[in-house]
């Protein structure tokens, strides 16, 4: 007669026991593992987006796409599974529907007037812009200029080309930031104002497709 009762209480008792095991080693490991998994997941997400963008811009073959090769190498260095990498490439080159990521570079200032470039890959420009603006203002900085925010480049919404998005944001460089000239180590372009300095590279990778 007791047995059915116990049976009936099996679930709740189990749950209570579960709560009571709060000091067990496993629950500590579990908690830690959870935090690590979240971090690992975030890293993989970033790597995956870079891989997708690279594959879409220059094709899915790492031998003919320098940016993709770099992205894969970096992803492998973080122990990202090959399967996940492959899926990211296939998703980008397969032409299938999915989240369309766009590359946007935000410009801002930090403490002491330091110029900051934030390169993002986003499927929601409004969210990203708000996020970055709030982080900057909370930590003694500010987003560079209204015309550099996604509001102005939303007309390019149909374009998934990172070149287009980047050129847009470069051409709208606020004057103060324009005085800080940036250049690519590999290319050494002087004309940062009118065209993105890495444009020759992007063209090259497109030819290889």
């Amino acid at each position, binding site marked *: 007669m007791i047995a059915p009762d116990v049976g009936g209480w099996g679930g709740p008792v189990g749950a209570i026991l579960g709560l009571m095991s709060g000091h067990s080693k496993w629950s500590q490991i579990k908690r830690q593992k959870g935090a690590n998994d979240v971090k690992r997941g*975030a890293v993989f997400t970033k790597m995956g987006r870079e891989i997708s963008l690279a594959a879409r811009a220059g094709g899915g073959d790492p031998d003919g796409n320098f*940016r993709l090769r770099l992205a894969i190498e970096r992803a492998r260095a973080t122990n990202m599974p090959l399967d996940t990498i492959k899926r990211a490439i296939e998703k980008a080159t397969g032409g299938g529907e999915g989240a369309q990521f766009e590359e946007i570079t935000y410009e801002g200032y930090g*403490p*002491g007037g*330091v110029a900051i470039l*934030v390169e993002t890959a986003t499927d929601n420009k409004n969210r990203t812009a708000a996020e970055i603006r709030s*982080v900057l203002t909370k930590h003694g900085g500010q987003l560079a200029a209204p015309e550099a925010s996604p509001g102005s480049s939303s007309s390019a919404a149909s374009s998934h080309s990172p070149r287009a998005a980047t050129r847009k944001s470069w051409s709208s460089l606020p004057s103060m930031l324009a005085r800080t000239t940036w250049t690519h180590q590999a290319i050494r372009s002087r004309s940062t104002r009118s065209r993105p300095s890495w444009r020759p590279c992007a063209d090259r990778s497109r030819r290889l497709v």
Partner: protein
Amino acid sequence: MKIESADLSMIPKNTVELDESKARQALRLVDILEDGEDVQRVTANFEIPEALLAEVGG
């Protein structure tokens, strides 16, 4: 010869030097920006004293 890393990155042509407290603030800001979900890379043109960098990094 083994290649350890290869990268295409933005390097500033002019930099801003920061004192210790500003440098800490700036490093923190960059860290937090990098933690953002959509952020791929953060580049800044600050110059930070080696000693502080070693202390923060270590």
